[in-house]
């Protein structure tokens, strides 16, 4: 009894989902109509403030109820009596009609609700790429920037116009207000056993080659290890090997790989070229293949589950593994549970490569998960107030601080060091030394620091840093200091015709590159056969693909 329903369903939803947006590309699509600002009629201005600008606290002039698509995270399930909801009702005069969707398949349901026109007004936790193909059901927010002073202010202040333009569609509009970051937040890197590195007299590697040498030293010093280094993040987000570290490393090799591979083309200063055949890409693969060949990188790491990888690290079978600021805590608790009190874990700064110390455009970007609005919101009587509310909560300093920290005196206060600190008895991720025995959680019990109401951890450097533990703060500061950010290149607004033309080629090329990456690194395929690989890609339509991308980008 096989359930084909699911297969066809998935097939249909994805296709239909994409269909909506593919057709939204509609007329023209040559020059973005940037100057088109829409006006909001009085009928849609119920509850809107007269003079709303940067620095104003939003309060609807009459109580309004807006629709909210709520992403239900099991760690902090929605409670009706949450402080955040009560405060928003009291201070902003806004209540919510909630559409609750479990985290587990949030993306699928969000897409489907947008397509069927059933999506509630506010759609949070959304990346630009997530909804690229269903923009027909979304509000073209670029038309309403006049009503969102906080957003436009930050974009200007932090110089994000170019990056924002890159998110525009073929019709010149954008549909998602991304979470804005004052400073880039690189997160992924490698975690090492600091205690072993210290014992061997090694310091943080400055280059990838140095890292390889260090791994060799560790291998000799610890013969009980199966391999000095293993990998993870092979199965999350597209079937591709070692996605996190390849992205983190790729910038330093002058290319884009791993999760950063994206649409498969990298800007080389003059035009887009196919990432998978760049010289830098080959060097990247050669490097990691070298690690496998020398017995330094665990070949299982190319395909294994995250849990298996983690277990290898915490039981002392390997000395290094990919990491980020969240999983390093997991590693540490893993060591504690295993009774290993000597292990010290540290995230190193990403080493530099042949192209220097560079972060690829995505890693060094300033956008995070953001908020979109359903197209139907424009017809609601409270439309203008809705825009103001969204602008205030998600983009004003005051709103961001509120969404992250809560209410001064109720959840936090300013301590002796002039820093914000949670009150006694309240904790979040172990950051409050005064938390006490069984503290309440800032998110679970009060509703603050919740991805549905808070973007980009607070956006401003001040807010973002305020909850980072010192080592993460130092990591980000060093990364931002040492690395430059690769140039992203101009926007590639594909028209419907172009999108149709390259659709299959893009999918097949990406798949072929991922397979080849895994094969080259493992050694199943010889790097000397690189030319055969390039020919294979050409057979899948690579040249046409790159040409179309360049055409859409307006190159030449």
């Amino acid at each position, binding site marked *: 009894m096989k359930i084909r329903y699911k297969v066809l369903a998935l097939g249909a939803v994805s296709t239909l989902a994409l269909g909506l947006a593919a057709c939204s590309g509609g007329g023209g699509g040559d020059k973005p109509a940037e100057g088109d600002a829409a006006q909001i009629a009085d009928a849609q201005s119920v509850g809107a403030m007269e003079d709303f600008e940067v620095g104003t606290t939003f309060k609807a002039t009459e109580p309004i109820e807006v629709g909210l698509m709520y992403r239900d995270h099991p760690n902090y399930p929605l409670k009706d009596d949450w402080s955040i909801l009560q405060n928003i009702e009291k201070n902003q005069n806004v209540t919510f009609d909630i559409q609750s969707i479990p985290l587990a398949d949030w993306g699928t*349901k969000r897409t489907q609700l947008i397509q069927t026109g059933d999506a509630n007004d506010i759609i949070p936790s959304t990346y630009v790429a997530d909804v690229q193909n269903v923009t027909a059901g979304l509000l073209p927010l670029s038309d309403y920037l006049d009503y969102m002073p906080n957003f436009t202010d930050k974009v200007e202040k932090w110089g994000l116009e170019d990056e924002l333009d890159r998110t525009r569609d073929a019709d010149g509009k954008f549909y998602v207000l991304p979470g804005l970051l004052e400073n880039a937040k690189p997160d992924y890197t490698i975690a090492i056993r600091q205690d072993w590195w210290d014992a061997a007299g090694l310091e943080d590697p400055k280059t990838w080659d140095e890292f390889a040498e260090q791994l060799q030293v560790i291998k000799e010093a610890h013969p009980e290890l199966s391999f000095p280094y293993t990998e993870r993040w092979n199965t999350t987000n597209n079937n591709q090997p070692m996605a996190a570290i390849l992205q983190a490393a790729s910038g330093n090799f002058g290319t884009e790989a791993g999760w950063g591979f994206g649409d498969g083309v990298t800007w080389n200063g003059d035009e887009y070229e196919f990432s998978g055949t760049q010289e830098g890409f080959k060097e990247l693969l050669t490097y990691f293949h070298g690690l496998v060949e020398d017995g330094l990188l665990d070949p299982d790491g190319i395909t294994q589950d995250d849990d298996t990888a983690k277990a290898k690290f915490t039981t002392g079978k390997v000395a290094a593994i990919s990491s980020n600021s969240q999983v390093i805590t997991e590693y540490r608790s893993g060591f504690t549970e295993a009774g290993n009190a000597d292990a010290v874990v540290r995230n190193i700064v990403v080493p530099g490569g042949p192209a220097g110390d560079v972060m690829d455009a995505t890693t060094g970007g300033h956008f995070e998960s953001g908020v979109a609005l359903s197209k139907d919101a424009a017809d609601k009587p409270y439309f203008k107030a809705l825009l103001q509310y969204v602008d205030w909560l998600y983009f004003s300093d005051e709103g961001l601080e509120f969404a992250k920290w809560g209410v001064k005196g109720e959840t936090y206060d300013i301590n002796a060091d002039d820093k914000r600190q949670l009150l006694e008895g309240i904790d979040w991720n172990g950051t409050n030394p005064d938390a006490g025995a069984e503290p309440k959680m800032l998110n679970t019990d009060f509703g603050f620091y919740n991805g549905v109401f808070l973007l980009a951890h607070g956006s401003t450097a001040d807010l973002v840093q305020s909850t980072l533990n010192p080592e993460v703060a130092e990591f980000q500061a060093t990364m931002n200091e040492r690395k430059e950010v690769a140039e992203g290149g101009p926007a590639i607004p594909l028209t419907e015709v172009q999108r149709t033309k390259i659709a299959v080629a893009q999918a097949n090329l990406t798949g072929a590159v991922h397979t080849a990456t895994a094969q080259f690194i493992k050694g199943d395929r010889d790097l000397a056969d690189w030319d055969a690989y390039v020919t294979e890609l050409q057979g899948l339509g690579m040249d046409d693909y790159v040409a179309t991308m360049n055409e859409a980008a307006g190159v030449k």
Partner: protein
Amino acid sequence: MVTLDQTPDLAAVRTEPRTIKPTTSYRIFTVANVIILILVGVVTLYPFLNLTARAFSSQAAIAAGQVFVWPVGFNLTTLETVVQQERFWVNYGNTVVYTFVATVISMILTTTFAYVLSKHHLRGRSVLVGLALFTMFFAGGLIPNYLLISELGFKNTLWAVVVPQAINVFNLLVMKSFFENFPAELEEAAAIDGLSTYGIFLRVVLPLSKAIIATMILFYAVAFWNSWFPAFLYMDDPDLYPVSVFLRNIIAGASGTGEGLGGDAVQIGSNVKAVTTILTVLPIVCLYPFIQKHFVSGVMLGSVKG
């Protein structure tokens, strides 16, 4: 009219009267059979025992690969984390209700339709079979289904979960096959006795088809018990979800499928998948023995009164 209500002891039937002595080859076969079956039992039981052991073992032991069939570092932490949430119990209750209602509806529709389809003399029968069979291959797709359920006002109600999947064509066709092989003499005898079609169906065919009915109840109940997709699709109120959606969500949260907001990942052991499996499986596993006793032989031709 005869009904038979005891499980025929095939072993007993075979041993008396015994006109053939068990040959050597038969003895060898019996031994080999037992060995094979033991192997099958071990191979299928071991992973389940391992899973149960993991559900109650410590994280460290699991990571070190020390857990086999017995828990190492016995603890109930992960289990507690899951069942302590109030919503878990609300959702579990939902699952029970949905499963029950859905199974009843499905059995009624499937059994009656299968019976009708089993009558070869019925005009238009092939069309009806084709109508059902066609839906096995072609389906509407998510959007049209969603719009339909929405139009009918079933969203966020029990009906969205129990109605759309009511007839499983596979089950339907299997059941039809069983009805086709139901001895015609019994039905004819009942007709002669003056029973209408309804009567024959309810009083003769159904009682003597316990085996297939029990099987189908099991199949449907298990399918509905584990189903999460329709609820996920057509509902957006967490208190209405079946427990399968809840547990799926816990697992997603545990693997940090969130956005690395740090502290976002549910602080739950890596054996959460094992725990959720145990929670979902146990009731069903307990159900089977009750079904088993209904696998009676429906008919004994030799006992039909002349």
